[in-house]
């Protein structure tokens, strides 16, 4: 169990953070994910890939959290006022914040495929197993998500029109 925490805490937290855009909510969801995983560990079938199982809990919990709270708050990564970031880091952070803001504008189904693809580095098969959808659906959802994101990133001025 220690291993579960050590190995999956960060990716689960990051998946939740990208789904929710709020560190406190992400921490709450991460906690719930692990408690559910511990409670249901005997139901985990080793024939399935473990990360699919735990990411599935994370995505479901994040969507539930979105439904419960109904607030999409941009990622709060403002640095403390007394620790100014170097210009380059600040620019990177601003871009990261804009990307997070755009992610939050996507429908949760589309956001989930982007999160799994880019923040947990899952491939089509893994995403399909995690979300319980066929790989062909993963592919088409990724296309829809990227097309939507592209337009939004252009509107935010992050990508050239």
């Amino acid at each position: 169990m220690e291993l579960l925490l050590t190995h999956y805490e960060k990716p689960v937290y990051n998946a939740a953070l990208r789904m929710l855009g709020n560190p406190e909510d992400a921490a709450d969801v991460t906690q719930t994910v692990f408690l559910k995983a511990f409670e249901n560990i005997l139901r985990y079938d080793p024939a399935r890939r473990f990360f699919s199982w735990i990411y599935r809990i994370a995505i479901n919990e994040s969507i539930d959290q979105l439904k419960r709270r109904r607030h999409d708050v941009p990622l709060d990564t403002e640095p403390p006022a007394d620790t100014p970031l170097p210009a380059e880091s600040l620019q990177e952070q601003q871009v990261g914040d804009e990307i997070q803001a755009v992610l939050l504008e996507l429908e949760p189904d589309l956001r989930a495929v982007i999160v799994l693809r880019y923040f947990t580095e899952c491939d089509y098969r893994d995403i399909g197993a995690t979300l319980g959808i066929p790989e062909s659906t993963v592919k088409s959802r990724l296309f829809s998500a990227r097309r939507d994101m592209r337009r939004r990133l252009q509107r935010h001025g992050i990508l050239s029109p």
Partner: protein
Amino acid sequence: MSNERREQLLSAALDDDLDDEERRELDALLEESGGREDRQAYAAMHDLLKDVEAAAPPAALQAAIRRQARLPAGRAQGWQWLFPGLRYAVAASAGALATLAVLNADSVPGAGRVDQLGGSMAPADVRQAHVPVVSRRFAAEGFESLVSLRPNAAGLALSLDLESRRPLDVAVRLDGTGLLVDGLAGVDGELGNLSIRPDSLNLSVRGGRRLEVLLRRRESASQAEAAAPIRLDFSSEGELLEQGALQQPVR
């Protein structure tokens, strides 16, 4: 002006999921008006997403999870660690046996929420007979290990039963075998310096530890890869104590 089909193919190209015909089609579509802009936009977006750095979880989160799960802080106690949480969960349900029965009957595959996942609640090793296919003992001054390899539905499970009186570094190498590390199970204590990559696993132990490394066979694995052995190295403080290989079972 963008083109839906072109964007569809560009999206698939980012995942390296184009066949030769689609690649030719994409090349042709990129020659058309707006093709270059579409390609640049998708590539830039892909890079931006890949470059977003992972955030560190709050420092207190692990401790909070342990507290909530009623797990002891610090050193893990393997499966015993789980039992207080399980007892709590089952007691909180209305009737443990009824719950078990319902969950045992619930084997909704594929789509659905996680609370519908998983098929039988019985542990997999109760549901299916696991016959060790290959076993090998490794030993040297101050350490002994029994390693066994058996098939499971997803590929193979590599069991490591380690006993060492000195710091022991274990390396499991899968390169060239067509197998990928899929996870760990049944770990009965802390592991140090744990590093998991798709084709290798490294860990350090002292004392006795048991764990199972779940291995998944890559779909595209060739016959030659399926015949290649899994290699193991055991070392202590930089000194190689023992090394060897386990042959994959013939499918």
